[in-house]
C-alpha cells in the first residue's frame, strides 16, 4: 500500500532523516518507534507533503512526489497529527465535517459522523461544544475520527498516547486495535514501545534519522529491551 524508498527529509538546510526504507501492506499496522528527535514525525511529514523530502513515496503504486498536501490527502493519506491539532475554535461536529470535507456523499458522511458519536459517546454529548474544551484523550479520539472520515487508504497516527493518563492510553490503543481489526491500514509513530508493538504487525526502530532495527512485531517480544534503547538508558 505505502512504499517508501531512500527517504531523506529536510527542515530548512538540516537533514532530519537520512535515507530510510519502509513498507506498509494493506490491512497492516506498522509501528515506527524511536526516541525524541529520531525523525519519526519528519517521516510522517514527508508522507503528508508537509516537509521537503527526496526519495520515493508511493501510495498504491502511485508516486506522490511533487504533490501538494491536499492532493495527497485526496489520494488517501490521512493523519491524526502530533499534538492532535483539533480545530479548537470549531465545534466537535464541525471538526468531523472538516475531516470529511473532500467527500461528495453528504448524506453518508452525516450518517458516519453520527456513528462516530455512538462509538465515542463523550464526543456525541459535546458535539456542539468547541473542540478546545475537550480533554486530551477526547481530542485524540476526535483527531482519529476526523482523519478516518476522509476514508483514507492509510491512516498515519503520530504519538496518539503522548501526554495522556495511563487508562486513556489503554483506551486509545484499544481503538487502534479495533481499527486494525476492521482492516484499516495504519502507520503508527510511538514512543510507548510496549503498547505499540502489541498492536502492530511489524516494527521499525528509528534513531538519529536512520532505521537501526526492523522486523516482525513478534521478534521484539514485549518491547522491554527496546524501552531502554529508546529512552537512552543502556544497562
Amino acid at each position: 500500500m505505502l512504499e517508501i524508498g531512500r527517504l531523506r527529509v529536510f527542515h530548512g538546510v538540516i537533514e532530519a532523516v537520512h535515507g530510510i526504507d519502509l513498507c506498509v501492506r494493506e490491512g497492516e499496522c506498522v509501528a515506527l518507534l524511536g526516541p525524541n528527535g529520531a525523525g519519526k514525525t519528519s517521516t510522517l511529514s514527508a508522507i503528508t507533503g508537509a516537509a521537503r523530502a527526496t526519495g520515493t513515496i508511493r501510495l498504491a503504486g502511485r508516486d506522490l512526489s511533487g504533490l501538494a498536501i491536499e492532493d495527497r490527502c485526496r489520494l488517501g493519506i490521512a493523519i491524526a497529527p502530533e499534538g492532535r491539532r483539533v480545530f479548537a475554535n470549531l465545534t466537535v461536529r464541525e471538526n468531523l465535517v472538516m475531516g470529511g470535507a473532500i467527500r461528495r456523499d453528504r448524506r453518508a458522511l452525516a450518517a458516519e459522523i453520527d456513528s462516530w458519536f455512538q462509538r465515542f459517546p463523550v464526543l456525541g454529548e459535546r458535539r456542539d461544544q468547541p473542540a478546545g474544551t475537550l480533554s486530551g484523550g477526547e481530542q485524540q479520539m476526535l483527531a482519529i475520527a476526523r482523519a478516518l472520515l476522509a476514508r483514507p487508504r492509510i491512516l498515519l497516527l503520530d504519538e496518539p498516547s503522548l501526554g495522556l493518563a495511563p487508562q486513556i492510553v489503554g483506551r486509545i490503543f484499544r481503538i487502534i486495535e479495533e481499527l486494525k481489526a476492521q482492516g484499516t491500514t495504519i502507520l503508527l509513530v510511538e514512543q510507548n514501545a510496549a503498547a505499540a508493538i502489541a498492536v502492530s504487525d511489524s516494527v521499525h526502530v528509528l534513531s538519529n534519522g536512520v532505521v537501526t532495527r526492523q522486523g516482525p512485531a513478534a521478534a521484539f517480544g514485549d518491547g522491554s529491551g527496546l524501552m531502554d534503547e529508546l529512552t537512552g538508558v543502556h544497562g
Partner: protein
Amino acid sequence: MDYLIQQSLNALSFGAEYALIALGLAIVFSIMRLVNFAHGEVIAFGGYSLAVTGTLLTGNPWILMACVVLACMAVAVVLERVAFRTVRGADLTTGLLTAFGVSIILQNLFLLLGSPRPVAATQFIFLDRTLTLGPVRVSSLQIYETAVTVAAIVALLLFLRRTTLGMALRAAALDFEMVRLCGLRANRVVAGAFAISGFLAGLACIFIMARRGSAQPHMGFDPVLSAFVACVIGGFGSLPGAVLGGFLLGIAEVAVLILLPQSAGGLAHAVVFALVALILVWRPDGILSPAREKGDKL
C-alpha cells in the same frame, strides 16, 4: 433629543463603514497574516467600474450595484492570484510591503488610465436623501448603511457557521496546514477569503460612491487606514474585534467632534488617536485579540 438621535445615527453609520472595511481586512489577515493595504484600491476599482459600466452599460442603479460588488470581488481575487500568492507564507513585513506596492501601482494606474481629478459617477446619489421622521431629520444613506452592515455581518456569520468553506476559513485562521491535511485546497480557501473581503469592499464602495458621487485614485486609502485602526483596536485577525473596533472608532470620532469646541476641530484626529493609544496601553493586542494556541499542542 433629535440632536442626540442624529448624532447617534452619524456614529453608527461611520462605524458601520469602518466595520465593513475592517472585516474585509480581518478575514484576509486571520488566515494569511497579510495586512492588505491594497484593500482601499479594491474599493477605488469598484468606484471606477461604476463610472465605466454606468456610462457604457446601463443606468439602472440596482444592476450597477451588483456590478460594483462583482467587480470588487473579482479584482480582490485577481490581486491574490497575481501578487499575494507569490509571497504566501513569507514574512509579515514582506506581505505588508507587497500590499503597499500593489496599492501604489493601482493608484497610479487609476491616475494614468483615469484621471487625477474626480470622475463623476452619480448613479447612487439617490440613496442619500433627508428623511423627516417626526421632529428628527436624518439621512436615509446612514440608515441604509447601518442596516446593510448589520445584514452583511449576519450573512457572514451564517456563511462561516453553515458552509464547508466557512468552516474551513475559521479553521484556517487557527491552523492552515491542518486544513490542507484534511484535503481542502489552500488556493480555494484563500481565494474564498479574498472574495469575501472583495464583497465587503463592494458594499462599502456603494455607500462611499453614494456620498461622494465621484471616483478618485486614492478614495479608498483613507477609509482603509481608519479600518486598519479599527482592526488594531478590536484585535487584529479577530472578526468580532473588527466589527467592535469599527463601531468604537465611529462613536469616538463623532463624540470627539461633538464634545470638542468648534475652534479645536482640527484636533479631532489627534484626540481619537490618543484614545486608541490608551486602549492599546490597556490591551496591547486589542480588545478581542484572537486566541493563539492550537488545540492541545504539546
